C-alpha cells in the first residue's frame, strides 16, 4: 500500500480514533465531490425507502390476478401495465425491490462473515493456516459457481431466501478472503502493529482493533461492488426456476417470466430489467466512488 495521509509519528501506537478521523474525513470530502456517486447513493436510499414502503402499501395487490388485462401495456391506471397473469407490474416491482436489496446486501453480509475472519487469520498468521486457506480457495475457484449454488440449494431444500443468499455467498467469499488476506499480510509489517505487539496487546485485539479498521476501506469497496453480481446471480437462478419462489416477486423472476412475452408485451420484461440495470449501475458508481475516495494514491 502506498503512503497514508497520516503523520508518521507511529512509534507510539496512536489512539485509533484520531487516525481514523483523518482518513475518513478526507475520504468523505473526496466522495462529496463525486457527483455521480452522490446521485447514485441518493437513488439507492430512495430505493430502500420504496422497498420499506412496499411492506405496508402498494398501489394494487401484488398477487391478485386479473386486475389488469393480461399483457396489457402501460395505462394511466396502471403505469407499468399488467403481466401475463394480469397482475399490476408497478406494485410487483416495488415489492421486488425488497428481494433484490435483501439478496444483494444479505449475500455480502455472509461473504464478510466468511471471508474477513478467514482472510485475517490466514494473512496474519501465515504458516499452515495460510496454506490451508489457499488450498480451500483454489478448490472453490476450480468448481464452477453454478454448481456450488445448485447443489446447496437442492440440498438445503426448497429455495427460500435464506438458502439462496447462503448459496450465492458460498461462491463469492473467496475474493473477499483473498483481499483481506492481502491486506493483513501487508499491514502486519507496519510499525503500528509492531508497536501494539510490543505493548503486549493480545492477538485478537491486534486483529480487530488495529488491522481490521485499516483494511476497512478496500473491504467496503469490495463488498459494495459485489452486490450487483449477487443480484444478477439471483436473476440467473430465477431463470433456471431456482430463484425465489412464487408468488413472491423478485426482479429476476419477473424478468425471467417476462422474457417469454418479449415480442408481444415487451414492457413486462423491460420494467424489471431497467430497474435492475439502474440499481446495479448505482451500486457500481457508489462502489467506484468509494474506491476513488478511499484510495490515497489519487492526487485529487
Amino acid at each position, binding site marked *: 500500500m502506498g503512503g497514508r495521509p497520516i503523520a508518521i509519528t507511529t512509534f507510539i501506537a496512536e489512539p485509533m480514533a484520531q487516525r481514523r478521523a483523518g482518513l475518513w474525513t478526507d475520504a468523505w470530502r473526496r466522495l462529496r465531490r463525486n457527483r455521480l456517486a452522490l446521485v447514485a447513493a441518493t437513488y439507492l436510499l430512495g430505493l430502500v425507502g420504496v422497498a420499506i414502503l412496499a411492506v405496508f402499501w402498494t398501489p394494487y395487490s401484488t*398477487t*391478485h*390476478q386479473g386486475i389488469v388485462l*393480461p399483457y396489457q401495456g402501460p395505462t394511466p391506471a396502471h403505469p407499468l401495465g399488467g403481466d401475463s397473469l*394480469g397482475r399490476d407490474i408497478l406494485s410487483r416491482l416495488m415489492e421486488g425491490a425488497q428481494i433484490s436489496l435483501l439478496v444483494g446486501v444479505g449475500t455480502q453480509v455472509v461473504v464478510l462473515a466468511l471471508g474477513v475472519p478467514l482472510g485475517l487469520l490466514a494473512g496474519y498468521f501465515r504458516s499452515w493456516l495460510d496454506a490451508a486457506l489457499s488450498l480451500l480457495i483454489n478448490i472453490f475457484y476450480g468448481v464452477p459457481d453454478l454448481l456450488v449454488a445448485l447443489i446447496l440449494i437442492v440440498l438445503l431444500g*426448497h429455495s427460500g431466501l435464506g438458502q439462496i443468499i447462503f448459496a450465492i455467498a458460498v461462491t463469492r467469499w473467496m475474493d473477499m478472503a483473498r483481499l483481506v488476506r492481502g491486506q493483513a499480510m501487508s499491514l502486519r509489517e507496519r510499525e503500528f502493529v509492531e508497536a501494539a505487539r510490543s505493548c503486549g496487546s493480545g492477538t485478537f485485539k491486534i486483529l480487530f482493533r488495529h488491522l481490521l479498521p485499516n483494511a476497512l476501506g478496500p473491504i467496503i469497496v469490495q463488498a459494495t461492488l459485489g452486490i450487483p453480481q449477487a443480484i444478477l446471480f439471483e436473476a440467473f437462478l430465477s431463470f433456471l426456476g431456482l430463484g425465489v*419462489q*412464487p408468488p413472491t416477486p423478485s426482479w429476476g423472476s419477473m424478468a425471467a417470466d417476462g422474457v*417469454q412475452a418479449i*415480442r408481444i408485451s415487451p414492457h413486462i420484461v423491460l420494467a424489471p430489467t431497467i430497474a435492475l440495470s439502474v440499481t446495479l449501475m448505482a451500486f457500481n458508481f457508489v462502489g467506484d466512488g468509494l474506491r476513488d475516495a478511499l484510495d490515497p494514491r489519487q492526487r485529487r
Partner: protein
Amino acid sequence: MRFTWRLPRAFCVLGATLLVAAACGGGGGGGAQSQRLASDQTLRFPILGDFTTLDPGRLDAETDAEVAQNLFDGLLKFDDNLKTVPDIAQSLPDVSPDGLTYTFHLRHDVKFWNGDPVTAKDVIYSWNRGAVLQGSYATNLSAIEGYDKVSKYQVSDLGQLETLLENHDPAVSMSGLTAPDGMDGYTVQVKLSSPAGWFLSAIAMSGTTGNIVDYKAIRQDPNNWWQKPDLLVGTGPYRMTSHVVNQSVDFQAVDNWWGSPKPTVKHVHLDIINDASTAIAAYEQGKYDLMGFGGYSNLPLADVLRIKNNPQESKQLLLHPKSRSYWVTFNLVADAKRKAKGPFTMDAPDSKDLRLAFDLAVDKKKLVSVVCQNVLCTPATGGVLTKGLKGYLGDNQDPLSKFDPAQARSLLKKADPDGSKTRGLTYVYDPENPLNKPTAEFLQDQWQTNLGVHVDIQPEAHKQFIPDRLAGNFVLSRDGWQADYDHPQDWFDNLWGSKLGCPDANCSSGYTTPAYDQLLKKADSEPLSQALSDYEKLSRMLIDDVVYIPLYYTVGAFLIKPYVKGAGTNSQFDYYWDGYQILQH
C-alpha cells in the same frame, strides 16, 4: 451471420411470380399455393427434448410414442380419425362368445424393413417381451392369461432374456398366447384371464407395448439395439438413419413398404431445441416445416397469442383439443404409509364440506381466461374425462365445476370455524408444463381472496413430484391425465381403486371404496356399449365424494406451413407421417 446467397429463394419466388404474372397477362391467381409435389421431399421439425427410448417394450413419453408410431405397427391401430382398424392383422379379430378368446389372422405380406417376414412367432415374442420388461404400458397386456406370472419375472441379463424369449421358455411366456397354425403361421390366439372390454383399445394403441419387434435384430444387441440404425427394425413406413444424441435425428422412408398409404415424404429430419420460443422463431425463419409436432404441442402462450393476432401467420396455426385433463387432487387417506395427512382425508370430520368449499372457491372460467387466455385450455365442466372421449359426462354436467364463493365460505365456516384446520396448507406442483405455475399462483390467489385461507404453493422437480404424489406425500396437488386410448378403463383403472394399488401404492389421492372396486370390475369386463353407464356411475361416485377440483382440458397448438399437405393431428396423436406431402414452395 448467414449470407444467404441462397437468398435467391426470395428472388426466386419474386421472379417466378413476375413470370407467371407476365405469362398469364396479369390478373388474379397470384400467390396461391402450388399443388405440385416438391422435388425435395424432406420434412423438418423441431422437438424440445431427445427420446427416452424407441423400444416399444419400454416406451412411455409422448415424444417417443409420436415418433415410434411411424416406425412400428401393432395388430390393430387407431387411424388418423381414431377409428380402430386392422394393421398387421387382416381384419378385426374373431371373438369367442364368452369374450375370453380373441383370434387374430395376420396378413401374409408384412415384412420388417430389413426383409424379415412377420409371423405368429414375432407377435408372441413381442408381447411376451413387453410383459417381461414391465415398461409403463405393459399393463396393456395385463388381461392376457399368464401375464401376472410373467410380469413378476426378474430380469438381470437382457441377453439371457432374449434366449429365453426366443425359445418360448415358460418362465417368460404368457400361457394365453398361442399360435394354432404353428409359429411360422399367421394365426395368433389370445386367451384372456377374464373378459375385458378394453383389451382391443389397449393393444391398438400406437407406438407402444403391443407393437411388433424383430427378435433377429434385437438379439444382436439386447441392451442398445434401438440406438443403432441397423438394428432399430420395425414394420413401419420409416426407419431411423442417424441419431446424434441431444442434437438431431433422421429418418428415411422404407422402400417397398407393405402398408398404405405409401409414404411420399422420403426423409424426416428432427432437431432437438430446448427452448420453445427459439424453435418457433426458427420455424418462422423458414428452417422448419412444422411446429408442435412430435409431442410438443404445449407451445408458450405468448407466442401462440402473437401468431394468432398476425393475419398471415394465424392461417398456419392449428389449435386442437387434446385428451388431457387437469385437476387438483386432495390427499384423501392418511395411514402408516401416507404420512402427509391434512384436513381433507376422508376419515376426518367435515372433510367433504371442506373439500367442497375449496372446490367452489375456484373460479374455473376466470382461470381459463387468465392462465390460458381461453386459447390453450377450456374449462373442465363435464367430469374428469376430457371432452370428446367416451365417458364424458356432457357440458356443465359436473357440479364440481361450479363457482360459488358464498357457499364456499359458509361451508368453510361450518367445517372449520376457528380456522385451525386450514392453517399451513401447501399445494404442490411441477413446473414441467408452462401452465402449471400460473395455475398454482391462480389457485393460491383464489383461495386467499374467496376463502381467506392462505395456501403455500411449492414447486417440485417432475422426477420428485411424481413419486411423491403417487406415494401420497402431499395435501393438495396438481394432478392430470392424458388418455392413452378412447376407453374409460384407461382412466378408472389407472387413477383410483384397489386394483391400481390404492391407497398405498401408485395412488395419488388414495381413493378407493368397495363400491368403486366392485363396479369397476364389472365395467371393465363388459363390452363398451354396456359398460358406459357403469363408468358414468363411477364418475358420479367421484363427484359425490368430492375427490377432485376440476380445472381444464388442454388444447394443443401446432404450426403447419402452407406447403405441407396431409399434416394434422387428432386428440391423441399427430397424423402418421406416411400421409404427409411437401408441395412445391
